[in-house]
């Protein structure tokens, strides 16, 4: 069976510090991978998606970047965090010819 791992579960970082959130998928190959952000009262916003190694599409301009160094690894980064980067970050994966996305447990990021 497939599993998705996302860490850390919670993170408190000062403004201006760097960020690295990691997500890995097990039990499948060549998945589509996604990063979503959930801000209070605003639903889920798609930040990045990837259809293969090194292939990243950005959905909204922001202070964040994503990378996919391996087939089942997806990393969300920032060089300098802003207060507005606070939120709940969710990684997800989907099969190429399938329909739904499967979500990790999320990372609660608080920038102080």
């Amino acid at each position, binding site marked *: 069976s497939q599993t998705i791992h*996302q860490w850390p*579960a919670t993170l408190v970082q000062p403004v201006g510090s760097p960020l690295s959130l990691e997500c890995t998928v097990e039990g499948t190959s060549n998945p*589509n991978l*996604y990063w*979503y952000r959930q801000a209070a*009262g*605003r*639903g*889920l916003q*798609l930040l990045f*998606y990837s*259809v293969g190694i090194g292939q990243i599409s950005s959905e909204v301009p922001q202070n964040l970047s994503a990378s996919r160094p391996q087939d089942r690894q997806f990393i969300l980064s920032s060089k300098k965090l802003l207060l507005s980067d606070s939120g*709940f970050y*969710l990684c*997800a994966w*989907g*099969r*190429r010819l*399938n*329909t*739904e*996305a*499967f*979500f*990790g*447990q*999320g990372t*609660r990021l608080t920038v102080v």
Partner: protein
Amino acid sequence: AQSVTQLDSQVPVFEEAPVELRCNYSSSVSVYLFWYVQYPNQGLQLLLKYLSGSTLVKGINGFEAEFNKSQTSFHLRKPSVHISDTAEYFCAVREATGGGNKLTFGTGTQLKVEL
């Protein structure tokens, strides 16, 4: 592009009462529709999905939803809720062809079940 509207941000309901969570969507192409549930500080879990065929879709935990193409709606229902159903519910849509599994979500409805 697609959009999803969940008009009710919060829905309070007593235990064992029926509930309906509303979802309307907008799209110029055929779509697939989904309902996800999120418990506090957790990821999203798929409740049910509509791809094609019967417009009444049954999901996990006793939930069901009905696809209404003319009204562009996909409302979620449960005939009798339990305390454990307290959670946030998200409606989502994606293109039926292409789209790369990109889901567009509504802003969510917080269901609060009270004794």
